């Protein structure tokens, strides 16, 4: 089969590799009908995520048709059309049973590696390095889905592939980010990052009762989409003084909730941002928390800071004093996709939201390497690429 494989920094290629097989009794094999490239895949492309091996298949947003199921799977059959969460969860450990599927105890075969780094291992992920399980990803013609009886969400005929695909990751991610801000009716939200997750966070914030959303980015097309599709007010971070402007725009209070939908590769030109670039170059810092610092500074007293943006390692100069002094609540983490799939699918079916708005580019799987390049450089206003095998 054809699959997009990682071979090193800025080196991804579509190769012909063997097809996956059932390895465990709760597995299923999916024939992919649509998949996508995520912003977090760019961290892999740029070489920021350790424990990658040349040849690893990437991709954690995918959907398709069930081809084969393991002996223990009773709720799926061949031909079922399903979308699959990017976090792999057994459904039966204490974390899964309490809705925290991104923290599953039983889905990372390399749990000891993650334990060394983080103290305890969270769930395995598709296509996201061997720290998170080394699972072959979904930018491929076929994928093996572990714990498929828990994973696979069936998709009705009334919802097409482009509408359903983002239930795998970015729609629940944006939604959980907004939910984590504990939004009260009338609240004002500030969202850094108008990539796909940011766009879904904007829409979700309004769905959850926010009155105003201020979206921050430096890419014109993304700000335009935030205005047109998201109905957000926008701030161009390239013009600087984001914190001051947010204060003015909120009558001197600051936003009630702040979302960092940017993560570890934040861009900035201020002194502290340049400091991060320099430290990262000599490996004294692994992540760049430029947006995190701004969000802490900008958030109103007693407000909520929600972090869906991916961080992997350690950061410097974290303004813990500001966060403490203002009594902020910080909530973060990988998305507990499973708990959101059905409720968000219901909203799509009812017509409350059409997630396909975020797609700007469509490629065949064989052109995936080019798609990565386009997405990475934001060429031609690219915001979200989908791949059709």
């Amino acid at each position, binding site marked *: 089969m054809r699959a997009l494989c990682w071979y090193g920094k800025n080196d991804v290629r579509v190769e012909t*590799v063997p097809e996956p097989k059932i390895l465990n009794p709760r597995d299923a094999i999916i024939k992919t009908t649509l998949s996508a490239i995520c912003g977090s895949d760019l961290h892999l492309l740029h070489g920021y995520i350790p424990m990658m091996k*040349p*040849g690893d298949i990437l991709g954690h947003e995918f959907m398709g048709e069930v081809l084969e199921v393991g002996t223990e799977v009773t709720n799926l059959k061949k031909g079922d059309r399903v979308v699959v969460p990017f976090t792999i969860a057994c459904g039966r450990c204490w974390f899964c049973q309490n809705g925290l599927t991104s923290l599953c105890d039983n889905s990372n075969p390399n749990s000891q590696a993650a334990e060394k780094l983080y103290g305890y291992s969270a769930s395995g992920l598709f296509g996201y390095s061997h720290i998170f*399980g080394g699972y072959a990803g979904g930018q491929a013609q076929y994928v093996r889905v572990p714990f498929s009886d828990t994973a696979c969400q069936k998709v009705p005929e009334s919802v097409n592939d482009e509408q359903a695909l983002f239930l795998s990751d970015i729609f629940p991610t944006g939604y959980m980010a907004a939910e984590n801000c504990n939004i009260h009716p009338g609240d004002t939200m500030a969202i850094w990052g108008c990539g796909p997750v940011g766009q879904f966070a904007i829409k979700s914030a309004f769905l959850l009762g926010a009155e105003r959303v201020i979206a921050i980015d430096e890419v014109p097309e993304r700000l335009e989409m935030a205005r047109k599709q998201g109905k957000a007010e926008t701030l161009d971070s390239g013009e600087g003084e984001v914190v001051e402007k947010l204060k003015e725009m909120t009558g001197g209070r600051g936003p009630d909730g702040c979302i960092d939908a940017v993560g570890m590769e934040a861009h900035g030109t201020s002194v502290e941002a340049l400091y991060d670039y320099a430290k990262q170059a000599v490996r004294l810092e692994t992540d760049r928390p430029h947006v995190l610092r701004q969000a802490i500074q900008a958030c109103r007293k007693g407000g909520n800071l929600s972090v869906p943006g991916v961080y992997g390692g350690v950061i410097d100069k974290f303004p813990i004093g500001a966060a403490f002094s203002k009594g902020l609540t910080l909530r973060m983490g990988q998305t507990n996709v499973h708990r959101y799939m059905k409720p968000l699918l219901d909203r799509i079916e009812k017509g409350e939201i059409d997630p396909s708005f975020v797609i700007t580019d469509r490629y065949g799987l064989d052109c995936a390497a080019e798609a990565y390049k386009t997405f990475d450089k934001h060429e031609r206003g690219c915001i979200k690429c989908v791949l059709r095998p």
Partner: protein
Amino acid sequence: MELENVNQMERIASVIAGTALSFFGLRQALAKHQAAAGAGLTLAGAALIRRGVTGYCDLYRACGVNTAGEGIRVDRSITIHASREAVYGFWRNLENLPRFMKHVQCVEVINEVPNELIAWRSLPGAPVKHTGSVRLEHATAGRGTTVTVELQYDQPAGPVGAWIAKLWGKRPEREIELELRRLKNMVEAGEIPTNQGQPAGRVDDGSQQGKAKQGERVQHASEASFPASDPPSYTHVNEL
């Protein structure tokens, strides 16, 4: 009274070495022009004899080394989201043991309290002589069962052997952790997570491969990428 920190074999060796050193030292001391060296050797020899006779070594004490222990003791626990009955039943079903416990072979059960405790010891001729127990306790707040394994065993080369094995990466605690994790996987999820046997764009003959050449098509990936229970070595990130 000082505690012993030197084991039997070492003590015997110490006495023999100390006696020999003292003998040569005395000879040298009595010879002309070598009194100082001879005295030094005699003192060293005397220290070794004392060490062997009393079983206590100041240098070991200073370095925190103790070779006189009764063997190695390992304690590890894990919480399993299942009742004690379910965990006990799974463990006691001997067919399940090899799936998660690779070290508990050739044993006889010496004590057993249903749903609470199983204690065993190795049979004569077992590769590693040991005793062990597993205790099952209620975990708080509905978390299930806490499973605690205690193992006491003799490493073939004694405590020094265990220390060397640690340096080489084969820590017994790690093995027990892995086995408890497999037990948890089996009882909770019904299977052990794996990525062994899945596809990848590399020819895996066990060595770390560099980039595949441009245009080179990978037709077959190997069955085993790496053992599921051992993480691969760190793959260095390329320069920024």
